[in-house]
Structure formats: structure tokens, C-alpha cells
């Protein structure tokens, strides 16, 4: 059973009277208040992933330090709290790096591969009071909480009175919360965290970043303006992920940065003809450089993220025998990461982002090239072409086709996917979702096929590098051989699956869903 907890926020004009006097006056003769020790100073750090996974799930995570043992408190949407003692933590941290406990267990499911880091910090003075009934039994606690936000900006929050029931005394606690709320002229709300208030006081809001492409376009807007909005959004996303990539907070910063680059490149390639002439060529080259800069580190991240599963799937070799391979991957990753950081700190990168922003914001407001082309017309034309290309190339693939044909098809599918994402706001969400789902099945199959092939080639390369290193036992190379064999099997599995996946994508039902989508642009 959850403890009953309600919060009453004192209005600003109640500041003249001490909060405990306000509470005492509100409770009258039905309850008495007793002090429960001296006020304590509590430091809070609210934590979330960069893409606000906890906030989106209705949860808040706090690291609370003060006179009591430091603890992590995870509050769910329904007010249920999980706590675990946790001192000497450093941020950012992946859930798996936290000490074992119920908060870590829940957090692993919520944050996944993203690290949590402080999104706000505050210092609170908390005075605990016991609420006694006529038997002088404690039936509830009132915590008077005076909070000063320190980060992202300094601000003072209104005093909060947190009423918590002692087990079995919920009715009394409800009565206490009601009396306090009546006296304060406020409502007793659920005992959520004051994170949103802290952010608002500092002029920020939660969920101000998402890895999803969330640009609102209107069908009738000029094509150039639509593309400019999309490209500016992607540039924002790219730049937002640079600091996290440089600090190596978690692997998703680099992933999101790469996605922003790939979407930009696809938009330029497939729709850049509506922009002033020369832009596509000039920036296309630079974004290709940026994409290539990020590839080696990302490839190694993918290896390292899947390492545990790969090691666990070994049959003949023991997982421990792969340890030298793991060490090699980590060393390679560290070297590639240094190159990546140098690139992101280079004048070339700064020039690229600055000039790109200047060009996009400076685009003339007119209709641009291609005269009266609207956003909806541009989207229909480019998505239609990309769709036809996927069908054409897919139909040409036979069981004897070389792997390159499947790789090319994968690129075409990605282009179609990016176009669908870029222009998503022009379509009915439901119809859009169904078409993306059809495409995703095919993309997953093609991705599996190519990724496994690339990994097999890489593992051979790694093995030959490791042969030259001292102290690498033959068992490690044997285990890597088994790994390569398993990757080959997985690739073959994907190849076997391809025909069925493509048949489904090219089926009349899927075609129909595509036509429904394209027919519903004008909103």
C-alpha cells in the first residue's frame, strides 16, 4: 500500500508568517504539532537523461544528500516512491554504474543505455513536524520545505508543506492536508517533485529535447521554407548533441548527432534542389566529411554495446576467452574517439555549423526555386519517387544477387524513411505510423544483413591487428573465429528472410496503406 502524501504550496503572500505558525493555526484543536528535531539542510539534484526519458515516463529521480544518509529517490506517476541509499555518486552515470538496489533496477528499464545527469539542483531547509491526535499518537508528518534552486538558474520556490500519513492513518492525514489547504487558500496536490517548478523558475522546461524529428510544417507553405525549417531543426539537434559527445556522456549523443547529419544529407540530396543553387553541393561535401568523421567511433560503440550478448552466445569458446578482444575494442574506441573529438573541436566543424546556420536563416522568404512548389507537393513528389525506387530495386533482387544490391536497397530504404520522418507533420499520424511500420520490417532485415557482414569483415581486421600485439592468447582468436561464424549465420538468416520481408512491403495491402498516406496530405 502506498503512503498517503499530499503537498500544499503556500501562496507568496503567506511569506510574512512563519510556515509552522500557518500550519499550527490551520489545524486548530483537532491536532497538535510537535517538533521532530532541528531543521535540516537537504541538497537535491534532479536527474534525467538528455532526452528526458524519466520525465516522459512521469517519473522523477532525485539524489538527496543532507544529515541523513544520502539516497536516491525515484517517484512514479502515481506518487509511489522507491528509495535506496547511495552516497559518493558522480554524474553523469549509467543506471548499471549505480549501486545495486530497487532504484537502480527500475532505472535500468527507464533510462536504458542513456546516462542520467543533473537537470536541476536545489538546496532546501526542511523542518519536520509530527501531527499528533488526542492520544498524542503521531498520525502524520508535515515537512516544511523552503527550497532555493541553484541550477539551471537561481530562484526561490514557494514554501511547500508535504503531508505524509503514518501507516493506517490516511483519513487523519487527508483531514490535515485539507485543513492546511483551506488555510492557505490553495489545493492539496499530489506529492510530486518540485522539479517542474524549479525548471520553470529558471526559465526552462522539461522535455525540451527529443531524438524524434518534431517539426510542424503546413501543407501550403512554400517548399523552400519547409525545408529550411527542417534543416534548422536538424542543425539544432546536431549542435545539442555535440557537448555530450565530446564529454562522452553516453553513446546516444553520438548516435543522435549522426542521425541529424544523415537526415540533413538525405534532405539535401533528395530535396535540396528547392534551395538556392550551389548550396547542396557546397554543404553536401562538408556533411559527408562530418558523417565519415563519426563512423568509426559509432561502429565500435555498436560492437561494445552488443558485446555481452555476443559473448553469451558463444558455444564452443568461453566468454572469458573473448576478453582480449574486448580490451582491443576498447583501445580502438578510445583512439577513434580522440580523433572524433579533435574533429568536433576543429575550425572546419565550427565553420560548417556557423555558415550553415547563417545560410539557412538568411534564405529569402520568397518561394525559392521551383516557383510555387508547396511543402505538400514537394513531400508527395519526393516520397513517391523514393518509394518507387525501393520497389524497383527490391524487385530486381534475386537469390543470386550479390550483397551489394541489398546494401544499395538498404540505402534507398533509409532515404525513404528519412523523407517520411522529415515530412511526417504533413500526414495523418495513424496512416504515417502504419507506412513506417511496413518499411521498418524491411529495414531491420536489410540492416541485420549488412551490419553482420560489416562486423565479419571488421572482426577479421581486428584479428589481424591483434596477431601483431603481444600477449594475445590463441584462445582469443579462436573465440573471435567462432564469433565470425555466428555473425555469418545471422547474416545468412537475414538473407533468407529478405524475400518474405520484401514481399510483404510490396504487397497490395502495404501499397494501399502507402496510397492512403499520400492521399491525405492536405490538412
Amino acid at each position, binding site marked *: *500500500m502506498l503512503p498517503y502524501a499530499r503537498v500544499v504550496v503556500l501562496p507568496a503572500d503567506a511569506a510574512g508568517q512563519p510556515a509552522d505558525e500557518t500550519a499550527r493555526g490551520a489545524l486548530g484543536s483537532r491536532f497538535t504539532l510537535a517538533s521532530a528535531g532541528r531543521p535540516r539542510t537537504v541538497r537535491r539534484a534532479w536527474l534525467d537523461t538528455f532526452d528526458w526519458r524519466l520525465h516522459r515516463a512521469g517519473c522523477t529521480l532525485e539524489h538527496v544528500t543532507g544529515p541523513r544518509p544520502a539516497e536516491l529517490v525515484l517517484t512514479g506517476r502515481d506518487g509511489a516512491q522507491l528509495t535506496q541509499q547511495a552516497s559518493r555518486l558522480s554524474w553523469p552515470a549509467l543506471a548499471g554504474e549505480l549501486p545495486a538496489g530497487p532504484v537502480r533496477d527500475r532505472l535500468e528499464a527507464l533510462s536504458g543505455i542513456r546516462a542520467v545527469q543533473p537537470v536541476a539542483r536545489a538546496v532546501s531547509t526542511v523542518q519536520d513536524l*509530527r501531527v499528533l491526535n488526542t*492520544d*498524542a*499518537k*503521531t498520525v502524520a508528518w508535515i515537512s516544511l520545505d523552503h527550497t532555493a534552486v541553484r541550477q539551471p538558474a537561481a530562484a526561490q520556490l514557494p514554501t511547500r508543506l508535504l503531508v505524509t500519513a*503514518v*501507516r*493506517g*492513518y490516511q483519513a487523519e492525514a487527508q483531514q490535515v492536508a485539507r485543513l492546511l489547504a483551506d488555510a492557505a487558500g490553495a489545493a492539496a496536490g499530489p506529492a510530486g517533485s518540485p522539479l517542474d517548478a524549479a525548471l520553470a523558475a529558471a526559465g526552462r522546461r522539461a522535455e525540451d529535447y527529443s531524438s524524434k524529428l518534431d517539426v510542424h510544417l503546413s501543407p501550403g507553405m512554400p517548399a523552400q521554407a519547409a525545408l529550411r525549417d527542417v534543416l534548422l531543426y536538424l542543425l539544432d539537434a546536431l549542435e545539442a548533441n555535440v557537448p555530450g559527445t565530446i564529454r562522452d556522456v553516453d553513446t546516444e549523443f553520438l548516435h543522435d548527432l549522426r542521425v541529424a547529419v544523415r537526415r540533413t544529407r538525405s534532405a539535401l540530396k533528395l530535396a535540396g534542389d528547392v534551395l538556392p543553387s550551389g548550396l547542396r553541393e557546397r554543404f553536401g561535401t562538408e556533411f559527408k566529411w562530418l558523417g565519415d568523421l563519426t563512423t568509426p567511433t559509432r561502429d565500435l560503440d555498436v560492437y561494445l554495446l552488443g558485446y555481452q550478448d555476443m559473448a553469451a552466445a558463444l558455444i564452443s569458446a568461453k566468454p572469458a576467452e573473448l576478453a582480449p578482444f574486448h580490451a582491443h575494442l576498447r583501445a580502438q574506441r578510445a583512439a577513434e574517439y580522440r580523433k572524433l573529438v579533435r574533429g568536433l573541436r576543429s575550425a572546419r566543424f565550427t565553420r560548417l555549423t556557423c555558415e550553415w546556420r547563417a545560410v539557412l536563416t538568411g534564405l529569402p522568404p520568397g518561394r525559392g526555386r521551383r516557383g510555387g512548389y508547396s511543402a505538400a507537393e514537394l513531400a508527395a513528389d519526393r516520397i513517391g519517387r523514393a518509394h518507387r525506387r525501393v520497389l524497383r530495386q527490391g524487385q530486381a533482387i534475386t537469390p543470386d544477387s550479390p550483397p551489394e544490391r541489398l546494401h544499395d536497397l538498404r540505402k534507398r530504404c533509409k532515404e525513404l524513411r528519412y523523407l517520411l520522418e522529415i515530412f511526417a507533420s504533413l500526414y495523418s499520424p495513424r496512416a504515417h505510423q502504419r507506412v513506417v511500420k511496413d518499411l521498418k520490417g524491411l529495414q531491420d532485415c536489410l540492416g541485420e544483413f549488412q551490419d553482420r557482414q560489416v562486423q565479419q569483415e571488421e572482426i577479421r581486421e581486428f584479428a589481424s591487428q591483434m596477431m601483431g600485439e603481444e600477449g594475445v592468447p590463441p584462445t582469443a582468436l579462436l573465440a573471435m573465429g567462432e564469433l565470425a561464424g555466428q555473425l555469418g549465420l545471422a547474416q545468412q538468416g537475414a538473407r533468407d528472410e529478405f524475400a518474405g520481408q520484401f514481399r510483404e512491403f510490396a504487397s497490395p495491402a502495404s501499397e494501399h496503406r502507402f496510397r492512403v498516406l499520400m492521399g491525405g496530405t492536405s490538412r
Partner: protein
Amino acid sequence: MKILATYNIKGGVGKTATAVNLSYLAAQDGLRVLLWDLDPQAAASFLFRIRPRVKGGGRALIRGSREIDASIKGTDFERLDLLPADFTYRNLDLVLGATKKPTRRLARLLAPLGADYDVIFLDCPPGISLLSESVLYAADSLLVPLIPTTLSVRTLDQLTEFIGGLDGHRPDVLAFFSMIDRRKRLHLEIASQLPEERADVAATIIPSLSLIERMSVERAPVGAFAPRSRAAQSYRELWTEVRARAL
């Protein structure tokens, strides 16, 4: 989860004072503790300032028509909860008698609480009854306060004999002397001699002290209102011994 019952066939030997003080000390030690006041006289409930009332009475609890969970009350002390007494507990034998396998009933009712509590104390009324048989079946250990008379030692023998005759589960017995008057030679003799002779008698003794009686005025465990007193120290020593032997 361990279940410890304070039990004696005789009344007025310090069962409730033991249950209240040891459950308080167990919670202070960081364990999650529940004390079930099974005595309709409701002394343990009174000492924790909790009104002796359970919705639906003992019948609803024993029959399982009302969740035990919903009747539990938090005490004024962290990690220590109480399942209050109710005047209807005087009829628990009758209620138990109407259930299937009555002696196993308490154990079945308490089993689901294992996720919430590390220790459950049962404060039992005196006498031998169907309820006490059910307690004996549920408890991992019996804490038996003895007053230092020849007669009470005989009662311990009767109790161990009775437990020896039980089918199935038999709780461990840990007796200890309570209400020792240090001015009486007989008390001191018996209290020092018996622990040497019998493994089921603890070395710790609880003296007869006015502070222990004062619990009913303060309505709190001695450790809460006189933490540095001899009474509090005695219970701490007893808890240390019980913890080592029974947990």
C-alpha cells in the same frame, strides 16, 4: 522473515514489556518489524498509543475476509508497525476452531508479510489454547519470560514437554528471567544457576525496575524515553542475545 512469540502459560510475567521493547530495538537496528498484539487486554497497543480496534474484528482477520495489511498501523518509530489488539480477540479460539487446520492458520496468514517485514513479534495472551497452539506452529522461536520461582521453572518444563509432543514444526525455546529483584537472594540464585544448567535459558536477566512500569505512563518503550537507563540497557542486552540465537 522470522517470527518470534513472547509467550508463557502464566500471566503477568513481562511478555508485553518484552515484545514492546524488543520490537522497538529490532527496528532501531534497521530491521522492518511488525508486532501483533494478540492479547485482548491490548496492553501493547496501549503502550504504542494505538487504539485497540481492528475492522471486522478477529474473525475477519483469521478467516482472511479482511487483509491483514489493511489493519496494520504505523507506530511513532521508524520501521516499526503494529497490528492492534481488538476486544473480539477473546473469542479467537472459537474462530480458529471453525477453520480448517486451525493450528496452521496463523502461519498461513503471516506468510505473505514476508516481503514487508524482517521480523514479526507475536505478543500472546497467557494460557494453553488453540490460539497458543497456532502461535507455536507459526513461531520460529518462543521468548519465554520467567519469574524466578520454583513454580515458574516447572511451568517452563511443562511448556517444553508440551512443545516436544507437537507434530510437525516445533519452535525453538529461549527463556529468560524477568522481574528479578536484586535484593532477594532466591531470585539471584535461581537466575544465575539455571542458565548454566539449561541451554534454553538466556544469560541476560531483566531486573524489576520502576522505569519498566513507567512505560504505561510514558506509553513508549523504555529505550525511547530513558535510553541511557539500566532498564533500556537490560533490554538491549536481551535483544543482542535473542538476535544472535534466534535470527
